[in-house]
């Protein structure tokens, strides 16, 4: 299943936009980038490694040689790339449940976008505009973004313990070790193979 590698799903979608709407979208993205609380929900959902939106203007498709025919397009296009953990349904359900307004602000400028709620129509639209991936690579297929963040926290805690524990007595170390375990005790989930479709 080439859209999935390990526990990560590659979603690629393209939607047409009337050219005059593109600047409005750019303003929204500008605000999203500057106003941190708007991003907070996205961060808290915590299942996307990397995601991006790329506007390709109607005359913006690369033209690299004379042999290549010129494009003659009416619409601008919004390309969307997501690298997320979880199944396709789970991903879209989660967004529709908690970020419906945000999604609407991004895609309402695309032609024929239904609102993100109710979710069934939204899923049909995404299925329509989604491309399948021909090749997907991840350097850490057995780790979700939660796993990655947990791993870095564990590493930092271990380093602290390693440095400070170097010269401790067994009794002192015992206490410091308990503090260490308490610090990392939520971050010890195993990494490995995920469920089907994930």
């Amino acid at each position, binding site marked *: 299943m080439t859209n999935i590698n390990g*526990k990560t799903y590659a979603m690629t979608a393209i939607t047409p936009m009337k050219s005059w709407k593109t600047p409005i979208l750019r303003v929204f993205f500008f605000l999203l980038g500057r106003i941190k609380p708007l991003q907070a*929900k996205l961060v*808290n959902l*915590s*299942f996307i490694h990397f995601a991006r939106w790329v506007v390709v203007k109607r005359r913006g498709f690369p033209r690299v040689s004379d042999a290549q025919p010129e494009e003659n397009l009416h619409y601008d296009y919004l390309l969307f790339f997501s690298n997320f*953990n*979880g*199944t396709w*349904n*789970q991903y879209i*359900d*989660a967004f*529709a*449940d*908690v970020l419906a307004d945000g999604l609407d602000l991004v895609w309402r400028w695309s032609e024929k976008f239904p609102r993100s*709620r*109710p*979710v*069934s129509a939204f899923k049909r639209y995404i299925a329509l505009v989604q491309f399948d991936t021909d090749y997907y690579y991840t350097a850490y297929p057995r780790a*979700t973004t*939660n*796993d990655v963040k*947990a791993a870095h926290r564990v590493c930092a805690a271990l380093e602290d313990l390693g440095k400070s524990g170097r010269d401790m007595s067994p009794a002192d170390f015992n206490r410091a070790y*308990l*503090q260490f*375990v*308490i610090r990392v*005790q*939520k*971050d*010890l*989930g*195993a*990494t*490995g*193979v*995920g*469920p*089907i*479709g*994930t």
Partner: protein
Amino acid sequence: MAKLNAADIQGFAMRGYTFPVARFVFLEIVDAPSGQALLRRVLDQVTTAERWDVKPDSTLNIAFTYQGLVRLGLPDATLLSFPVEFVQGMKARAEVLEDTGVSAPEKWEPAWRTGGVHAWVGIYAESPEVLQRRCKILDDLLAETGGAQVLHTQDASLLSDGGGKYCAKEHFGYTDGFGNPDFDGADRKSQPGQGKLTADGQWAPLATGEFLLGYADEAGELPVAPVPHLLAKNGTFMVYRKLHQNVATFREYLDEHGSKYAGGKEKLAAKFVGRWPDGTPLELSPERPDPSLVNDPARNTKFTYGSDPEGTRCPIGSHIRRAHPRDAFGFNGQLVNRRRIMRRGLPYGRYAQPGEPVTDAEEHGVIFMVLNASIFRQFEFVQQQWIQYGNDSHQGTDRDLLLGKHDHGGRFMIQGDTDPANPPYMCTGLRNFVELRGGEYFFMPSLTALALIATDAVDPR
């Protein structure tokens, strides 16, 4: 929000019967004409969701597999409009549910391995004698109409408390039966904590459409349902799973780790599940069980995890926190509202009192039934993503201690703090405490739908 037509809904879908004994009869339908004839007779026997002025001494309900609906002669276009997972049946979904290894269909008990189940008839009764009588009525109908053969039956009953009375425990010693979801129109006393969280921290009923077809669900639309509308409305989908419990292994494991865990064996057992064996929620009473709390429906399921983000009261990977995360994922619980399941269940087999010798091989476990509007979005999701996996609760690939598949050992971390009676503790070398012995997916039609099927009057668009 519409008032529900209780006379049209099967009682089993609306409330858990409090009868102590039950028999589940699995039928193979002979052909469409005689199957429909049988159904016409059975219709009179079906218990509805109407309130009882006088409690009957037994109940009867019926549900069908996809193959059963095919045999009953439903039109192809209707059959094709059923959800994919129901059409495939539970056996075919083994990879999705991770019913593999010891729980794989090849290892199921012979009756379930052979399959071919078309219908489930659930009969509950107030005593074994009454059960026999009601079952005889069904047998007589089967004989008269020749509409179906009995493939096999499954008896279940509340466990005995050792003093000749029934109790609400299951074979591992936990008191069960808390936390069934509350939904609009459920028409029974609801408890705070059963529904969904509102913005101001109160509990409200879930949308009816999460549990009954034909009503708006939490996504603000009608759930996916077969056509015609009349066939689906007031019906629901049921998951049936016979879960064998390896009681000896579980007791050994609890003994082994209970002696190493500084909080003691009973507390360790509580940490596995999130409730003390008597049912007291850890979140509300982390240090000891509290009978007054357990027996107070206004309190025994009223809690959230927001004030316990570290899991020091109720471990993050504990069973009830996995199966019903409440507000644990943030967003005021919104990510959880479409993943709720209604559970019905009864133990089967003899209860070995604590201290009595017991083996894994003995026939004992729980008949686990789930009701939901969408098997895929609700039961399968919880099983696949929250029981057999842990990413949503940031526990990596760790599985639920009780129900998870632990073929290669496995870990369960109990979060703790500096209190010597509540230390962090890692349970290693988890075993398969529960094994699946068989089961299937069923559609439980409304009374109207039953009549449509029985009179061959289903008309797809």
